């Protein structure tokens, strides 16, 4: 195949598309929908994956997390009930673990207490600031570094002090100039002395810093102890990590009286398990989108075959002329297959654009940063070409095998 021949084919294809706008648009629609569904879902999933990965990075080195709920939202109501019935992970458990988990370097606990507005003497935030109750160990388990002041201490918890540490971006909002440390903020009407400010995590989203941390006991005194905590355990090093997980699992099962052979009544999340869970969930989505887009592309392919057959009939004369002036069968074949590919690619490119838009719209609603899955864009376009080749071959074969003399006579 020569470049000139391909150029000629593409040119003729685009001219043919332009000449039959409505017909082409309807045909393109199928490909568009097929590619659109692939790209939308893959874009949304990539955006989620990015977020999940940034969440993973919230866990410090060699750290795992124990909680009542799984790491990824539960969709099935039956499952939901199962998790809901689990006994809460209460504060005394933290002490038991500290005591018994010899492979743990530290054991800490945290909980989301409330969202609300935070007021300083300079500024009042939207009511979207998260208040976290934490133990001192959380600072290391979550890789928090102090920009200023001190972290929370055991004595803060023991004395139920009304002190807090501010997330970096929140501190900048509340205290645009000067230091926050030594000053105070009001959260839901209660005053807390600021003892420290965290270094900004920055990164994607920007909202990761929009919180303040108070002593866990202070928070629970105010907002109820009847809650399930997230327990963060840090192992000494990578080598002992797995053993530490197993030891903690054993202790928890014993304390919570889980019968042997029964599954854990708690979740252990580590970077690895989170990734695994994410993959499991997304597999279902992947299978779903594969089925849907396959059906759409099959329908599109049949549409394209149909339109190409019509095109071959309409252009019988043209085929005859081309043959008369020296086109070989394979030149005609190439031309019509290229034409099918061109139609598919026009639909494919539109589908990719719409899909990126759609997927990122989903990302926008899920409040996660946008993503462009280049690999799937490419795969989508390759699939389009394949559809063109597969469904263009029969019409092209028919065109190539028309009798030139008959074709020239065709009215």
């Amino acid at each position, binding site marked *: 195949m020569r470049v*000139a021949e391909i150029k000629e084919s593409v040119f003729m294809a685009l*001219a043919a598309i332009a000449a039959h706008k409505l017909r082409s648009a309807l045909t393109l629609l199928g490909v568009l929908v097929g590619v659109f569904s692939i790209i939308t879902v893959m874009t949304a999933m990539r955006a989620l994956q990015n977020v999940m990965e940034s969440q993973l990075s919230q866990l410090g080195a060699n750290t795992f997390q124990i909680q009542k709920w799984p790491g990824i939202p539960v969709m099935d109501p039956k499952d939901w009930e199962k998790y809901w019935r689990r006994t809460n992970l209460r504060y005394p458990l933290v002490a038991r673990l500290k005591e018994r988990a010899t492979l743990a370097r530290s054991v800490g606990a945290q909980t989301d207490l409330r969202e609300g507005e935070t007021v300083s003497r300079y500024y009042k935030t939207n009511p979207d600031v998260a208040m976290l109750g934490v133990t001192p160990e959380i600072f290391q388990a979550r890789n928090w570094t102090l920009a200023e002041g001190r972290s929370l201490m055991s004595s803060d918890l023991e004395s139920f002090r009304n002190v807090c540490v501010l997330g970096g971006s929140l501190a900048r909002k509340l205290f645009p100039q000067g230091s926050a440390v030594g000053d105070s903020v009001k959260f839901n009407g209660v005053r807390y002395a600021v003892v420290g400010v965290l270094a900004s995590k920055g990164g994607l989203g920007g909202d990761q810093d929009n919180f303040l941390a108070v002593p866990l006991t202070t928070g629970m005194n105010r907002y109820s102890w009847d809650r399930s905590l997230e327990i963060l355990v840090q192992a000494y090093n990578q080598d002992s990590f797995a053993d530490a997980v197993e030891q903690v699992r054993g202790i928890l099962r014993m304390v919570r009286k889980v019968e042997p052979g029964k599954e854990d009544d708690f979740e252990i999340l580590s970077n690895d398990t989170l990734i695994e869970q994410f993959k499991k969930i997304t597999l279902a989505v992947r299978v779903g989108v594969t089925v849907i887009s396959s059906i759409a592309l099959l329908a599109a392919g049949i549409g394209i075959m149909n339109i190409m057959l019509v095109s071959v009939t309409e252009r019988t004369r043209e085929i005859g002329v*081309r*043959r008369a002036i020296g086109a070989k069968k394979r030149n005609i074949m190439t031309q019509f297959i290229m034409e099918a590919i061109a139609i598919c690619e026009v639909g494919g490119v539109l589908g990719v654009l719409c899909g990126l838009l759609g997927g990122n719209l989903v990302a926008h609603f899920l409040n996660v940063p946008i993503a462009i899955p280049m690999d799937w864009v490419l795969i989508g376009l390759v699939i389009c070409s394949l559809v063109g080749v597969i469904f263009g071959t029969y019409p092209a074969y028919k065109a190539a095998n028309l009798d030139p003399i008959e074709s020239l006579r065709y009215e």
Partner: protein
Amino acid sequence: MTVEANPTSLPNLPPGPLDASAGPPDATNGKVVIRLSQIAKNYQVGTETVHALRGVDLTIYKGEYVAIMGPSGSGKSTMMNVLGCLDTPSSGRFELNGIDVSDMDDNRLADIRNQEIGFVFQTFNLLARSTALHNVELPLIYAGVNAERRREVAIEAMGQVGLADRMLHKPNEMSGGQRQRVAVARALVNHPSIILADEPTGNLDSKTGEEIMGLFEVLYKKGNTLIVVTHEEDVARHARRLIRIRDGLIASDEIITHKTAVSA
């Protein structure tokens, strides 16, 4: 044999030496372009066999201007298809420039058509969505000529048919005569051994038809070999040799003397 007892019939002979007034001077060099021997073409229609050509012998020399006439169904189109290498004969031998093309496969015939034959059709048969220039370039695309050279040669051919100022017009923006000129340019562009025209004036009014025949006269004078199928005596008269076909055989083959030379 196919030749009737007709004193003016001159089968298989170069016209030049026999009649100095026929054909351009270089038609006398005697180079054979087409040699048909015992060409037959049969079509199977149901149980019946139609003998479209029944053993035609014909020799055409380089630089000749031949008209083929005959009643409907006599075999003109079949003959054109064979001469144009669009069809292969059922039997007999067809040599084009000394090469036997009777048994060539599809691909080689396509090459022959591309290199050696220029077609001019009654209905012009231009690609409607392409510019005149692109239509003329088309044979060169299949010949694998590079874009630059292609453009150059196509522009030259457009100039030869007097359409240098209409290159980028689409066929529907041109008159019938102009369209046929584009078709002639397309036939010329590969410098073929023969130009085959099937009723080239059939879709044109008589004045425009005369213009096209004038163009053919110019091409003839430049040394092209022309074969024109027509049913109009007026058109046939422009040629230098007239072959009449009847029932699949050559009925007569005569030199046309141009005493009142065609005033092109």
